């Protein structure tokens, strides 16, 4: 008898526990109240890209303080954000996304990245009709075909691959370059390969290529293959430390090409290769801190002010910080454009309609109806080992084969 009561009691407790858990999460609005707008973000806080999580959370923190303290909020509403850790894993990203949308009930999702994570939630974004502004994921499928709710702002390796060939033929005027691509073996790397192949086809050149698996550190076979094919100009798509390893490996085996790194290589960790990194080129769509443009100066002041001088050093030293910061500025403008009556659809329209947004030299960002690719112009940078930095050698330019053109049609 007593045992029956005991088990019954345990069962009741379970039910109560579950209901309590449920009750604790009931929320009425979709992220917008009279005095607050709630944003959500998923970050890699403890996975392989935890560095990104650290910098982006810092940026979000600064943005929140800037909007709330300096601007007094947006039309009388303060902004707030909540971050979920997804460890760069697509399954956890789906969980994080579902949590943000259904439990935290955020108004929009901001400042995300990760090709496989973001790919995993493409359909969910469409289904939930929640704006995601922006993703810095490196793959084409983020904006190709365009997803009404997903805005992309990063560098397209496909663009850059074409630009490498453009630059070699038109600027450096190299006779008979032997093109090569060393790329991380995923959609990101493959988009670089596709770009270089498109450019090569246009000018009648051939391309050798070698892929390496993400996380792999032994690039001996890849470097050997490139050397055997006599590659003189090589595009690299992948992370900065691996780029440094490739430089060292190439040096070791006596292969001396000119490298063109994508935007991810514009990073102090490229200097892990020492002076081997000197003189190579990189593609970049953002302004550099050493140029002392108004955008960077304002960023420096804000970060130091809101985070403290010491804590601000890390984020400000990250060359790619404007890729996270500029969209936040853009978003702030769009939110203000919407006025007091704020809805998700209005935000989308506002984001589409901002033209010639002045970032103070941080880089350009623009969308349009049906256009979710935010980056269109890049510069070629050259690496300087003495100064441990990268310096532009061209002005702002576009690839000679544009996305959406006949040779590069948009996906259906």
């Amino acid at each position, binding site marked *: 008898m007593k045992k029956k009561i005991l088990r019954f009691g345990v069962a009741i407790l379970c039910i109560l526990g579950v209901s309590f858990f449920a009750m604790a999460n009931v929320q009425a609005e979709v992220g917008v109240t009279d005095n607050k707008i709630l944003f959500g973000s998923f970050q890699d806080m*403890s996975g*392989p*890209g*935890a*560095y990104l999580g*650290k910098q982006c959370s810092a940026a979000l923190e600064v943005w929140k303080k800037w909007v709330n303290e300096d601007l007094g909020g947006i039309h009388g509403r303060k902004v707030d954000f909540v971050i979920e850790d997804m460890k760069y894993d697509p399954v956890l990203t789906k969980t994080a996304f579902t949590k943000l949308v259904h439990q935290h009930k955020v108004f929009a999702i901001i400042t995300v990245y990760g090709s496989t994570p973001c790919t995993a939630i493409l359909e969910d974004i469409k289904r939930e009709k929640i704006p995601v502004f922006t993703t810095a994921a490196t793959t084409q499928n983020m904006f190709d075909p365009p997803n009404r709710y997903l805005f992309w702002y990063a560098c397209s390796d496909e663009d850059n691959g074409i630009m490498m060939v453009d630059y070699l033929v038109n600027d450096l005027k190299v006779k008979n370059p032997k093109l090569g691509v060393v790329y991380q*073996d995923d959609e990101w790397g493959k988009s670089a390969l596709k770009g270089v192949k498109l450019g090569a086809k246009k000018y009648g050149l051939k391309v050798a290529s*070698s*892929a*390496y*698996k993400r*996380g*792999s*550190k*032994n690039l*001996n*076979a*890849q470097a*050997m*293959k490139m050397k*055997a094919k006599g590659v003189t100009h090589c595009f690299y798509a992948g992370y*900065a*430390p691996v780029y*440094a*390893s490739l430089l*060292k490996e190439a*040096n*070791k*085996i*006596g292969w001396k090409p000119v490298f063109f790194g994508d935007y991810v290589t514009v990073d102090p*960790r490229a200097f*892990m290769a*020492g002076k081997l990194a000197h003189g190579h080129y990189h593609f970049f769509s953002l302004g550099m801190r050493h140029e002392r443009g108004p955008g960077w100066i304002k960023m420096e002041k804000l970060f130091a002010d809101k985070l403290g001088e010491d804590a601000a050093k890390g984020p400000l030293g990250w060359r790619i910080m404007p890729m996270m910061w500029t969209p936040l500025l853009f978003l702030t403008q769009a939110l203000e454009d919407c006025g007091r009556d704020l809805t998700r659809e209005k935000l989308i329209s506002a984001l589409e309609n901002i033209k010639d947004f002045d970032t103070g030299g941080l880089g350009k960002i623009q969308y349009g109806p049906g256009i979710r690719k935010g980056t269109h112009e890049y510069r070629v940078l050259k690496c300087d080992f003495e100064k441990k930095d990268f310096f532009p050698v061209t002005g702002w330019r576009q690839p000679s084969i544009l996305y959406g053109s006949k040779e590069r049609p948009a996906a259906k």
Partner: protein
Amino acid sequence: MGFEILVQLTVTGLAWGSVYACIALGFVLIFKSTDIFNFAQPELMMFGAYIAFTLITTLKLPFVLGFFCALILMILIGSLLEMMVVRPMVGEPVLAVIMVTLGLANVLRGLTGLFWGYEELQFPSPFPEEPLMIFGAAINQAEIYTIVATAILLVIFFLFFKYSGAGISMRATAEDTRTAFLMGINVKGVFTASWAIASLVATIAGVFLASFTFLEPIMGHVGLKALPAMILGGMDSVHGAIIGGLIIGVTENLAGFYLEDYLGSGINEITAYVIVLIVMMIRPYGLFGTKEIERV
């Protein structure tokens, strides 16, 4: 030209193979003495490398001194871990012990991320950057030292297990703990010693690996390759682990170069596991492993 390429690939493959061999050696040491498969071995390697890094850069110790201090520290840490976490699990089902070591691996990785952050760090390699030329193949000095060190370790451990009293008692403990205990062997000491030595070897592997690549908390991933090395060599064979590691290192590098065009990229990653499958079909106990005789 073709021959030069082959030599180059082989030499680099040997260097990487030595890293796998060292890690596999750590696995085998613990397995040989305690019958436990220590999934935390790659993380011990990573932790050892990070500790060496801190001693050398933050405390500004000269490389050799820092390296030795790191070895000593890791021996202590390894022994501590064994006494706190693994000893209580003696006698428990194999899977439970494996799980504990997996939990330990997580803890070590988290601690590394906590104290050193997740960014990749440059390891202060003492080896000069200029490559040496051997038989027409270029090799980094860091790689040479790794191969040499691994060879020395091979000899040391081979002799240790075959001839020294401590080595024999370790083998005895692995074969039958209870009998060893009855024979007066300090079984607890053997367990702790095996973890201590495995941590030592792991640190050596970690420092070398960090020297010719860089430091990052997911360094342990390389450790997964040591498993095929162990299988190939035979799970309880010290020299098997090392030879297995070298074979895997060379084969995968060769496969990566020659087979990429036919079998797609990433072939060098999968070679090790294909080798495992082949070996398991032909010689289930590996090249040098002892066949387990089960008594019913």
